[in-house]
């Protein structure tokens, strides 16, 4: 796919790197000469200019891009870039700087398909590092919905059972499964749960405790602490 990323700072450049590693085509737009130069040194195609201007985004190829990521720290630039992107038929993703704004943009900004708040993602990582153990939050999907990766331990009540035998609460789904030291894949009903296997679950915050109890059993007090509100 083809992507246009506005902003080559820490969020934009890192996003561009990940996309490129996965084989996608990325053009960056950056108005600061030094930052643009740094991105060029990393072999990125960079258009120097203001990402809220149509001619600059045209030069970056917005007309035939699949999606546009407005990832600068300036909300006005980000929103204007999304408006131009939407006009050109792109999927648009906008970075915000304070979490309360998520609700406002979701409701009022029709030009923005998705909103990202980098600090929240950083907080999930920090929380996982602090908790350690056999539970890792992967992503907040919605305000009350989270994807969690559990590692089966010797104490897991479900150890030795198969996926089809795991009776999760109604507001939880198994998304992926990986045997110990193997990569994650689509969960099959006959896969058996052994110590060291990993299982990714999408769950409502209300049933997280139940899911954790079922898959991990009793954990250390730190890991058993409230998982919500990353």
């Amino acid at each position: 796919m083809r992507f246009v990323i506005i902003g080559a700072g820490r969020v934009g450049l890192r996003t561009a790197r990940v996309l490129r590693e996965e084989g996608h085509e990325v053009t960056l737009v950056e108005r600061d000469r030094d930052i643009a130069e740094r991105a060029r040194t990393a072999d990125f195609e960079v258009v120097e200019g203001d990402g809220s201007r149509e001619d600059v985004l045209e030069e970056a190829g917005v007309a035939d891009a699949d999606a546009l990521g407005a990832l600068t720290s300036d909300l006005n630039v980000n929103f204007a870039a999304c408006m131009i992107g939407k006009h050109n038929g792109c999927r648009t993703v906008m970075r915000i700087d304070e979490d309360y704004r998520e609700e406002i943009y979701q409701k009022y900004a029709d030009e923005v398909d998705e909103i990202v708040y980098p600090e929240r993602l950083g907080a999930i990582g920090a929380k996982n590092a602090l908790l350690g153990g056999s539970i890792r939050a992967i992503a907040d999907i919605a305000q009350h919905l989270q994807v969690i990766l559990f590692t089966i331990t010797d104490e897991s009540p479900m150890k030795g059972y198969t996926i089809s035998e795991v009776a999760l609460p109604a507001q939880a789904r198994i998304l992926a499964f990986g045997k110990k030291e193997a990569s994650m894949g689509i969960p099959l009903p006959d896969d058996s749960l052994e110590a060291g296997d990993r299982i990714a679950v999408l769950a409502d915050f209300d049933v997280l405790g139940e899911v954790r109890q079922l898959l991990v059993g009793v954990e250390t007090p730190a890991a058993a602490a409230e998982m919500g509100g990353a």
Partner: protein
Amino acid sequence: MVTAYVMVKANTGEADRLKSEMVGLDGVESVNIVAGDVDFIVKVSVDQPAQVKEIVADHIQAIDGVEDTQTYISMD
């Protein structure tokens, strides 16, 4: 006649509630939710400059969820 534009920054996602509370104030002509580093631009139209201060300091800033305001008096 004095016209002023008040930039309002919120600390809540409840934009609708803040908007309707501000729209209901005497002297407030319009309230728009905007993209950018402030959340609302409020247009105030009153007889005396002192009334601008009254609307902003006594009423807008007293609304729960309003973090900060910045007022610009129109010169034309």
